[in-house]
């Protein structure tokens, strides 16, 4: 039986996901430039884990394997998670996080299209709660610390946990710019003093702000290619800017400037790549605005007053829960039902 319409636009889920993966490349390139190639190892590891977990789960669920492996959605989860984990993390950290994201957060809910939560953020949440130590050892940008590992030495550490003689992990790694800011604010230092530290760059963290520029560039491509709509990134970054701006205006010594919030942590990545995941975000435009504004509010609160270094993941997950409710109350008016009468 043939169905009408007989014609369709040449597009596919895998093409969409592929475009999102491509849009991540500028940010990843910046990452490699400033922090070295270790991130590529995490991405590869996460990709392999994601695809094999997906295949295994599909087999257990007796679903066709090939079409779902080719849809690129597992790869996207893997890449987003890998970008949220310290690059110099032991191999099993990436593997556990990715496997959990795919097996529990995606496949157990019914696979592609059925997960209420963003799988990558579930993976991140599991790791930061279960392995907080490993999750704080972020690689320092190249040129900022005295000791630096060669790529092979990094591989030795990732896969065997072996560091060269007389080198400690603390000498190689540091907390994230956001985390450092929070710690030093607790020590009663002013924002201005803290931002003079070498790990800070022009707007955010040295190096990481450049990666954020890369992700912003990729995100603009997604907008231009109409893969995502403007609602979520604009509402997220806009709300974050306004809230951070108000606090900053009131007390600039204790509350950092809004642009710092944009270019630190996962704000840009979240605005364009994580919150915009179609499966776990609202389908109505008004709903998207509410969803993203809520996520921005939570991000700021967690960053400023909470215990975790960044708030994007938890903000995303908390807003994911509210999606059905948001969608229900933001239904647009149907053609012919627009008049109040």
């Amino acid at each position: 039986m043939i169905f009408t319409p007989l014609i369709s636009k040449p597009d596919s889920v895998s093409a969409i996901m592929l475009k999102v993966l491509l849009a991540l490349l500028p940010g990843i390139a910046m990452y490699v430039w400033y922090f070295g190639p270790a991130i590529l190892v995490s991405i590869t590891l996460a990709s392999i884990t994601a695809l094999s977990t997906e295949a295994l789960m599909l087999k257990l669920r007796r679903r066709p394997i090939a079409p779902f492996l080719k849809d690129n959605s597992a790869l996207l989860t893997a890449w987003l998670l890998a970008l949220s984990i310290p690059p110099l993390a032991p191999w099993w950290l990436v593997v556990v996080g990715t496997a959990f994201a795919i097996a529990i957060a995606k496949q157990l809910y019914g696979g592609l299209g059925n997960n209420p939560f963003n799988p990558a953020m579930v993976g991140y949440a599991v790791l930061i709660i279960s392995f907080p130590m490993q999750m704080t050892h972020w690689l320092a940008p190249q040129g900022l610390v005295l000791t630096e590992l060669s790529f092979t030495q990094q591989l030795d550490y990732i896969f065997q946990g072996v560091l060269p003689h007389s080198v400690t992990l603390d000498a190689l790694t540091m907390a994230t710019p956001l985390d450092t800011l929070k710690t030093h604010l607790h020590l009663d230092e002013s924002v201005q003093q803290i931002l003079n530290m070498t790990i800070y760059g022009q707007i955010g963290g040295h190096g990481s702000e450049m990666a954020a520029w890369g992700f912003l560039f990729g995100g603009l491509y997604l907008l231009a290619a109409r893969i995502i709509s403007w609602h979520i990134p604009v509402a997220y970054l806009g709300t974050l800017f306004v809230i951070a701006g108000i606090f900053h205006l009131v007390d600039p010594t204790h509350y950092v400037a809004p642009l710092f919030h944009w270019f630190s942590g996962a704000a840009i990545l979240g605005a364009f790549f994580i919150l915009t995941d179609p499966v776990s975000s609202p389908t109505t435009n008004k709903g998207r605005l509410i969803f993203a504004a809520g996520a921005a509010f939570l991000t700021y609160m967690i960053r400023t007053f909470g215990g975790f270094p960044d708030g994007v993941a938890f903000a995303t997950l908390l807003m994911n829960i509210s999606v059905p409710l948001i969608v229900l109350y933001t239904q647009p008016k149907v053609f012919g039902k627009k008049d109040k009468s």
Partner: protein
Amino acid sequence: MRKLNHFHGGIHPPSNKTQSTQVAIAHAPLPSKLIVPFHQHAGEIAKPVVQVGDHVLKGQLIGMPDGFVSSAVHAPTSGTITAIDLQLIAHPSGLPNLCATLIPDGKDEWVERKAVDYRDHSQPELQQLLRMNGVVGLGGAAFPSDVKLRIGKQKIKTLILNGAECEPYITCDDMLMRERANEIVQGAQMLRFMLDADEVLYGVEDNKPEAIAALQQAIKESNLNHDVVAIPTVYPGGSAKQLIRVLTGLEVPSGKLPTDIGVQCFNVATAYSVCRALAHGEPLLSRIITITGNVRRAQNFEALIGTPIDYLVALGEALSDTDGYIMGGPMMGIPLPSVHVPVVKATNCIIATSAKLFPQPQPSMPCIRCTRCVEACPADLQPQDLYWFAQSKEFGKAQKFSLFDCIECGACSYVCPSHIPLVQYYRFAKSEIRAREHDKQLADQARVRHEFREHRFEREKQEKADKLAAREAAAQAAKLASTQPLTPQQLAEQADLEARREHIREVAQSSVENTAVENTTERTGN
């Protein structure tokens, strides 16, 4: 310049129209056999008024309209009726329907035609003329035009002539406007007269500049005050509600008709047949059909109603790898169950399909809620939610999310990156809901009947009791009366009554016994 409005969504599929507009409309030669269905219009089937063996003339009535929404059917040429029976027609169900088979005599001899000047007739008379001339909407729905002109007390402000023709491949209206604009404009003027409309607008998509120019020229020559509006080429811009929105800015309220907001819409080809019917006395006997797709000669043909479609596609010379045919466009058309079906009034286009031209759809993936369908939906629906509800058979929710405002245009399916046949799901949900509502109606009727029956039993019981009480009261009175001795006559009557009662008892007794005996014999007989 008229300020145009927009409707939400819409798509821009490749139009594929130029293939069939290269040459003028050709007259399809007379086939050796015509199969004329009696049900070519929306509403009730026409009643056959000819017999097998009758010789009929071109334009002779063979099917009488039967019912308020119905239309006449005529012999498309002169010849002999050789059969009136069930034949396969172009309906998605694939079920046969009542048709007359006509073998033409080749003379093409007309019945007497009576042209009228519409200005001399009342609106009901003109409506009746259109009904008896079999004029129905030629845009696809084949709704009897006279019914659309019966507007009661409603005031029509705008008459819209729909020449949008937004579906890809179809060019029959385009070619008709290019070649016969004058008669379209005359027909539109007649429709305007019948509706007493203030303004006449032609909505034509801006990818048909020749048609727009031809209409403008015809209007100028006729010195009429009509307005041709070039509307943006967006599918489904030719859908009545969307076209009304673009031209007038008004939205037909959900569940209402265009006339409720003072607008009425007719297809340009319908206006053409109105003109032929009134000004020339010619019933609707033929129409323009686009033959296109996987054919060597894509072209428009004027073909008689009843022409077998295989005959038409042979004229277009379908290529050898043709694997099927669609009636209508690629967005909303129906796959033909067979090419041995006749052309009907609603047939606007036949597309020959091949695997190369229309590749098999890719296997469906799960919905990822990307909302490309929302962006494309011209009815502002949430197609992904409706799909979800249809799939999980949550029909109540589907209805609450305005399933019945879906016009089944297929724009959602067209843009779906997961290649989900969304429209099929909506049709399924709609038919399920309709079936359930029908069942519920039947159940309600049965319940009402049952309740009435109970009520009747109760009432009869009460009546019996009342009668009994009355009789007892009478007996009591009689007893009182019997203290006086009975007259011999009364005694005789009493005895007679007793005897009759005894007889009745005996008859009853014996009949009971007889039945018992019969039952036993029956049982033993078994």
